[in-house]
């Protein structure tokens, strides 16, 4: 990718290059780093006691627990289903593959608020389903199942979207060879497919987790914002903000900001691993896994 640098005649003059590099640094510093730093600064504005008060309050603790519980339910389900979908889309001869891909894109292109609305229309009090459920004493909207459903909807595509290009990319020779030698599909998946996709799978899982814990719009609509009951951590941040407690809200938000940083670090690590693999193994040869 740097082959242009060797030929000065087809690259930009040095001053232009320096200007562009400076511009890139300025862009990232002003538009991304500064907001990030400002949350941390706001949280620390009144000293560390803010953190103590915020994280000792029972509402915050409940919000953290609820957020973790939702992620714990939503992520494994979407990882397994996402892997199945990616495998199916890349390995089976299917009509309407493009349609499936379009459906996988839907959760990205629909506004989170509309996602919440969809579930209220489907399962809320005024719908046929909702009325039936209520007569049997099952509460979905404004309760945990509703929060979970909304989270499942918005986090569904992450793993599949991460795996499909990976699975399409590598050759099917090894899987075919294993099948000819009599290995079952589970064993083929475990021994051959999984090692190929594991870094992508890990990164998809991390993205899915970050979104599951950070989702705001969809969850806000179906939660009803009952503090200490249906408020997740992002919703609790907003509740504190509406109370006018900017530093308390920022303290709660900095825990979520940490989540963002962790997922970025994980991305960098998976990137480095992937590049190492690509460097050490020439693509397309049967010996590449050894």
């Amino acid at each position, binding site marked *: 990718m*740097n082959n242009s640098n060797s030929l000065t005649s087809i690259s930009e003059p040095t001053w232009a290059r320096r200007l*562009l590099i400076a511009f890139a640094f300025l862009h990232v510093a002003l538009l991304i780093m*500064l907001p990030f730093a400002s949350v941390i600064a706001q949280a620390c504005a009144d000293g560390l006691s803010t953190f103590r008060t915020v994280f000792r309050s029972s509402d915050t603790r409940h919000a953290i627990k609820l957020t973790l519980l939702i992620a714990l339910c939503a992520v494994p389900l979407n990882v397994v289903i996402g892997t199945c979908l990616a495998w199916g889309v890349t390995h089976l001869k299917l009509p309407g593959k493009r349609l499936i891909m379009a459906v996988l894109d839907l959760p990205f292109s629909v506004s989170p608020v509309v996602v919440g609305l969809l579930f209220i229309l489907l399962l809320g009090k005024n719908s046929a389903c909702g009325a039936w459920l209520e007569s049997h004493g099952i509460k979905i909207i404004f309760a945990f199942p509703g929060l979970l459903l909304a989270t499942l909807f918005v986090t569904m595509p992450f793993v599949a979207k991460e795996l499909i290009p990976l699975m399409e990319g590598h050759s099917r020779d090894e899987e075919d060879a294993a099948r000819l030698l009599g290995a079952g599909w589970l064993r083929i998946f475990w021994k051959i497919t999984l090692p190929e996709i594991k870094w992508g799978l890990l990164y998809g899982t991390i993205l899915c987790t970050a979104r599951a814990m950070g989702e705001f719009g969809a969850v806000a609509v179906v939660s009803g914002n009952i503090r200490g009951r249906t408020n997740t951590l992002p919703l609790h941040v907003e509740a504190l903000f509406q109370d006018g407690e900017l530093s308390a809200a920022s303290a709660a938000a900095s825990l979520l900001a940490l989540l963002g940083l962790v997922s970025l670090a994980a991305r960098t690590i998976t990137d480095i691993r992937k590049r190492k693999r690509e460097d050490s193994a020439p693509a397309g040869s049967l010996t590449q896994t050894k």
Partner: protein
Amino acid sequence: MFGIGMAYVGLLILLPMAALAIRTAQLSPQDFRRVLTSAETVAAFKVSFGQAFLAALFNTIVGLPVAWTLARYKFPGRKFLELWIDLPFALPTAVAGIAICGLYSPRGWIGSCLEPLGIKVAYSVNGIFVALVFVGIPFVIRTLQPIIENLDVSEEEAAACLGASRFYTFRRVILPSLKPAILTGFSMAFARGLGEYGSVIFIAGNIPGESEILPLRIVHALESYDYNGATILAAAMLLVSFIMLAAINALQRRHA
């Protein structure tokens, strides 16, 4: 296994979408007229589409040189920059909202500099623009970067050999081959900005008819148990954004 996956997608995604479609079909034309012609709705449409468009445009213009720099040059700190570019993807929107609000409020780091100049960002439409720029940054850069890395340099060499200046080569050789990717990045940033809710409500001030976005109007309708109103707004928003995305898709195919 794949069958289970498809059934899951059908139940989780298509069934709720169908519920919206059925509900919309049952509504009377009077309902549509009542909701869609109200002054607040018209204003919210303008604010949402207008600011999402401007923010995506800003991100496209500013993102192109950044993507170029990251793809073509080797310099210390490049990996570090790349890491930060992805932050708006990974940061929960509530955090983005509170961060930007703190930064641009009259007492914040940037807000206090802008106030003497008479520029109001927090609690106005400008706040919406700033928030949407933040959430849209990675889309253009991440779409363009791999395309620039894979550009065929021999075309640029040919242009240079034939005596074209670097700027001329960029305008006539490089830019045309980047056009489809620029459109993709733009439309992704636009779609994201249109639906964005979490980060905007913190900073917009949410004044009806002035700085109220469409998703917030849907939330207000739901809070007052106006389910029909919320349904109509959601359906209209989906319809318009699908039409726009289809148009961009068609434009792309013509350039590809």
